[in-house]
């Protein structure tokens, strides 16, 4: 187990370097001039532009800038953006909100997704099965920004069940946006759980359990479900990174001040430092989640123990 973890951590290093290099290059290549508009309605004096470029290291070649950035990153310093705020601070005030969104989405995936999948799988071919299969298909087919706008309209404005926007980022305000963010993955989890359960319910070991006279609830719960839920757990863990990326759309619709809107704003303001910092943290969270899921998988499935 320990050996496996060390090997996986070592494998993360090239992934991390590669991903940061790509993002750093892209933010380096963002078109536009960060000094534009900093001096009111006239162009900035040459001396200021020169000071600005050397202060932020923009005059150095790309690889040197990347090297300096990575050096600072190792000491936990994500840099200072062009507005004089440290990126750590910018992220620290927004990450709680986005993480709350992601947590709501994950909880929905577990409760609604797995729950609906189990119901549909056990009652295969009945009404509830068709309901789950069809409604998940519809959710998958509707782009999330349409779903978000419709949910905001119906539940926020017409029915007034939820607040229309989520400016303060409280749990209550974030409930509807979190469900919208998670909707696509809830649908995938439900379908995945159903497919695996249907397959396992026909497996020989479940038939054996019935043949031995085991109660159906015990045969399904103990034998079929345990084996069916493994892929769903992997999928839920892997969806975490995509949720953080998808937050860009959800946060825009519901006017939430989180990491997604920070990324969107940093792109439009040519604020490369903030962009790179925000994305680097997402990549790290994603890699750690993947590792945790793989370790959990080994614990749950004895066939896959990482010796």
């Amino acid at each position, binding site marked *: 187990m320990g050996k496996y973890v060390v090997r996986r951590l070592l*494998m993360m290093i*090239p*992934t*991390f370097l*590669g*991903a940061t290099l*790509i*993002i750093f290059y*892209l*933010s380096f*290549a*963002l*078109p536009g001039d960060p000094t534009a508009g900093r001096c009111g309605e006239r162009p900035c004096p040459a001396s200021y532009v020169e000071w600005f470029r050397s202060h932020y290291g923009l005059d150095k070649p790309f690889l040197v800038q990347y090297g300096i950035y990575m050096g600072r990153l190792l000491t936990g310093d994500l840099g200072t953006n062009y507005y004089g705020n440290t990126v750590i601070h910018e992220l620290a005030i927004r990450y709680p909100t986005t993480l709350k969104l992601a947590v709501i989405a994950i909880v929905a995936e577990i409760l609604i997704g797995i729950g609906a999948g189990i119901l549909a799988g056990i009652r295969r071919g009945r009404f509830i099965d068709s309901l789950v299969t069809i409604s998940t*298909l*519809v959710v*998958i*087919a*509707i*782009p*999330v*920004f*349409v779903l978000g*706008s*419709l949910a*905001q*309209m119906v539940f926020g*404005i017409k029915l007034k069940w939820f607040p*229309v926007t989520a400016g303060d980022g409280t749990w209550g305000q974030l409930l509807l946006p979190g469900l919208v963010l998670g909707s696509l993955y809830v649908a995938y989890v439900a379908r995945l759980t159903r497919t695996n359960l*249907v*397959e396992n319910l026909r497996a020989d070991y479940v038939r054996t359990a019935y043949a031995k006279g085991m109660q159906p609830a015990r045969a399904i719960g103990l034998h079929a479900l345990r084996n069916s839920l493994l892929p769903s757990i992997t999928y839920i863990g892997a969806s975490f*990174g*995509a949720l*953080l*990326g*998808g937050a*860009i*759309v959800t946060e*825009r619709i519901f006017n939430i001040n989180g990491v997604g809107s920070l*990324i*969107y704003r940093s*792109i*439009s303001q040519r604020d490369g430092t903030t*962009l790179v910092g925000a*994305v680097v943290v*997402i*990549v790290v969270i*994603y*890699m750690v989640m993947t590792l945790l899921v793989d370790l959990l998988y080994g614990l749950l499935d004895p066939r896959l123990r990482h010796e």
Partner: protein
Amino acid sequence: MSEIVTTTAAERPRSLGADAWDVMRRRPLFWVAAVLVVLFVAMAIAPELFTTKDPRSCDLAFSRQLPSAGAIFGYDFQGCDIFARTVYGARASILVGIFTALAAALLGGLLGTLAGYLGGAVDAVLSRIADIFFSIPLLLGAIVVGSVVPLSPNSPLWRCVIQIVLVLVLFGWPNTFRLMRGSVMQVKPNEYVQAARALGANPFRVTTSHIVPNALTPLIVVSTIDLGSYIATEATLSFLGVGLPGTIVSWGRDISAASGIGYIRNAPHMLLFPAAALCLTVLAFIILGEVVRDALDPKLR
């Protein structure tokens, strides 16, 4: 199993494809999906056949008018005929979906076969490269690249489509790569592969005529399903302003133009029709992929 036993020497054993086709054509869902796909592809190829109106000739006097006999889908904010725009919008979405799915299947499939068959150092290097692109969420990567290389409103359609396809493939290929790699690794130890090798077939022949045909099914199924989700992602990019420029008639643009809260309240038909067209297309490809999977997977029969 019984089928194989009862097959006499005189009749040819039926191929997996013929078997699957037999299962598929008895399912109504297959025909619903197939008809929808044919319909939307026809719209993409020849929109003139479906409407005589020009999606770009608009009259502000008709702004936001509800559906009527003259314009069955009504008019949008600029007074353009929504039916004409929905018909003409199919082309961009379908082109992006088909080419992204094809390119991701080809690139991921090819590299996945290499990694799965060769293993060792090749596998390690390719897998790490795939990990890098996999760790950047597709939407996030596409937004950043779309801002670095903005599409100008004057770009022709093919230029925009190529760029969006490239961006989506760049961050989407690790999925198909992992799938094909796993699938090839599963097929490789089979006896018939060893037999082919023992008979002196070279690695190229072993791969192309024994491994790939037997490992291809998951890739085909997932690519068909992904085709739909790529269309939805393109629309999302257009919603965020980094997809197709507004000068190109596309569902994504029309949906995003109509999804402001004020518009949904006062002119829901502006959102309804392009969104319905988009959803039906995505749905058709997903259902098609699932029907094909069910037909090819004997375990679910």
